[in-house]
């Protein structure tokens, strides 16, 4: 130890501590993916060894010195078949195995807890259903399937958690989703893995996995008071959605009670399943999504509402399971401090122009 400068030694120690060759396995799918990965590594090693051995052994056995006269060989159909079928077989195994994992990762279970993630240059915003907001971090409990619904506010980003072996692109204009179940408490890397401009390398964060108890405590500490659905209810009223979607029989817009999860018949005769993506699209591109029996008069809210606002509205709509609930929203409008008298009782038709300036509430 006396021969090595203390500075150099510290440096070396620091390096070794940070030296990692393999990411931690912190989700349920991680070991499954790693199993396939190691199978592939094994097959690759064997394949490479075969090729290298062939080259080296032939080079030695048939070098010019040892084997001065070459023997002209046309080929061998048997060999061709062998090295076609065996690689093909191995590749097909990897195809099937990999596809199974892929479908598993991108098919969230029905009981998954949904967390919304909005990516924008150059940060990640996560929104828990109870209204907790995080920037560049995600607190989650172990032992529970968690679905992330992602969207970008500007360019392509990609939400990547190497320790969980999952990533998903966040695209402007529509939702994408991925799910996982964390198995190991700890803090793991969050990266943006789609080049998105200047601070792409800075769009990183922490995934904090906690025990369910700790997670509950964290939720309680970081709540902003309003859950996403409550915020959505507020927006629903302040944007005058309830002027048409008020649940009354003579309403100009369809009732939104129980619409989430239903199979809706559209004006063009097609049926569609109503999920988050449909709701978002219906808010931003209403003319493409007219319910049967109604006319395309809904104004678009494109440009008047941010992705966070849309998420809140979607969450609110998901909670609507009766017309009574919708009508309750009508009444809560009157309690809004900045109400400009937008909510109406039956009979009064508010000015709902396509370029309505009301409700410029950006969340």
């Amino acid at each position, binding site marked *: 130890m006396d021969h090595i400068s203390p500075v150099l030694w510290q440096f070396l120690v620091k390096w070794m501590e940070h030296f990692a060759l393999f990411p931690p396995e912190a989700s349920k799918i991680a070991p499954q993916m790693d199993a396939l990965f190691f199978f592939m590594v094994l097959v690759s090693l064997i394949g490479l060894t075969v090729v290298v051995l062939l080259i080296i052994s032939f080079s030695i056995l048939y070098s010019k010195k040892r084997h001065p006269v070459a023997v002209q060989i046309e080929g061998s159909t048997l060999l061709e078949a062998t090295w076609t079928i065996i690689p093909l077989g191995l590749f097909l195994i990897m195809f099937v195995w990999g596809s199974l994992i892929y479908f598993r990762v991108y098919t969230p279970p029905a009981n998954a807890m949904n967390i919304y993630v909005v990516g924008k240059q150059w940060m990640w915003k996560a929104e828990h259903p109870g209204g907790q907001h995080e920037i560049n971090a995600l607190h989650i409990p172990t032992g529970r399937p968690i679905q992330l619904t992602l969207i970008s506010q500007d360019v392509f980003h990609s939400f990547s958690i190497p320790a969980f072996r999952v990533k998903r692109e966040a695209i402007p204009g529509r939702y994408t989703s991925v799910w996982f179940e964390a198995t190991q408490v700890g803090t793991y890397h969050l990266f943006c893995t789609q080049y998105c401009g200047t601070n792409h390398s800075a769009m990183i964060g922490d995934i904090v996995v906690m025990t369910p108890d700790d997670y509950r405590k964290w939720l309680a500490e970081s709540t902003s008071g309003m859950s996403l659905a409550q915020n959505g209810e507020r927006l629903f009223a302040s944007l005058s959605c309830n002027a048409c979607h008020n649940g009354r029989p003579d309403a100009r817009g369809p009732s939104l009670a129980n619409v989430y999860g239903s199979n809706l018949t559209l004006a063009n005769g097609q049926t569609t399943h109503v999920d988050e993506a449909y709701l978002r699209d219906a808010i931003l591109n209403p003319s493409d999504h007219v319910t049967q029996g109604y006319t395309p008069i809904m*104004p678009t809210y494109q440009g008047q509402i941010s992705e966070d606002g849309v998420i809140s509205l979607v969450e609110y709509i998901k909670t609507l399971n009766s017309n009574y609930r919708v009508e309750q929203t009508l009444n809560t409008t009157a309690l809004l401090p900045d109400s400009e008298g937008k909510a109406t009782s039956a009979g009064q038709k508010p000015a709902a122009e396509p370029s309505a300036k009301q409700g410029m509430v950006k969340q």
Partner: protein
Amino acid sequence: MSDSTVTVTGAHAEHEHPPYQRHHFASMEQQVDTTSFAMWLFLLTEIMFFGGLFTAYLIFRNWYYPAFVEASHQLSIKEGTANTAVLIVSSFTMAMGVWCAETRRRGALVLCLCLTFILGLVFLGIKYDEYHEKYEKHHVPGLHYSLKSFTDPASDPEVHNAYPDDKPLMPDMARHTEIYFGLYFAMTGMHALHMIIGISILAFMIFRARAGAYTTGHVTFVNNFGLYWHFVDIIWIFLYPLLYLISRHA
């Protein structure tokens, strides 16, 4: 086909072949065959080139049909049909030109090429008129694009009277018309660019034809250019119904 094996003196005297045969070809037949094949292959690349635009167009037309219908009604069917007729006739005059070259009718060849040239210019003239109208009506994406004709059809009496059934579109559907016009200008613009290139080559060919370059039995240039011209025509024949004829019933 060719009997004009020219015997020359001087540096060229060692081998006998027509002056227009390139040295790396073994025979005129090979040269003609090769250059013809090359032109067909080039046209195949052009199909792939336009194919990307057609793909994008078909996808968006499927998604935003109402907007595309109303945007298409903004195009003048008279001018579009006229242009189609102009191009088909120009293809005919071009084919006649090739026949003239093959039968060594120099004067007739020049006439055919001139007619094709003029018809090409007529096409471009009509196109200019259409583009100008789009510009006036603020239907050029990026240049103060206006949705008014689609959100309020009554403000556009010319089109509204022709298509009274076209309902006013909500802004979020109406803004998709900008994609229609973007693709319209991209596709017809790319086509027009190919026309301009063709017309320029025609101008060059008219001069050479007058000098008799194509009536000596060496018709490859005219032939291959004819292929190009017909191809540009065929592209238009696809563009016309796709762009102009969406939901136009009597």
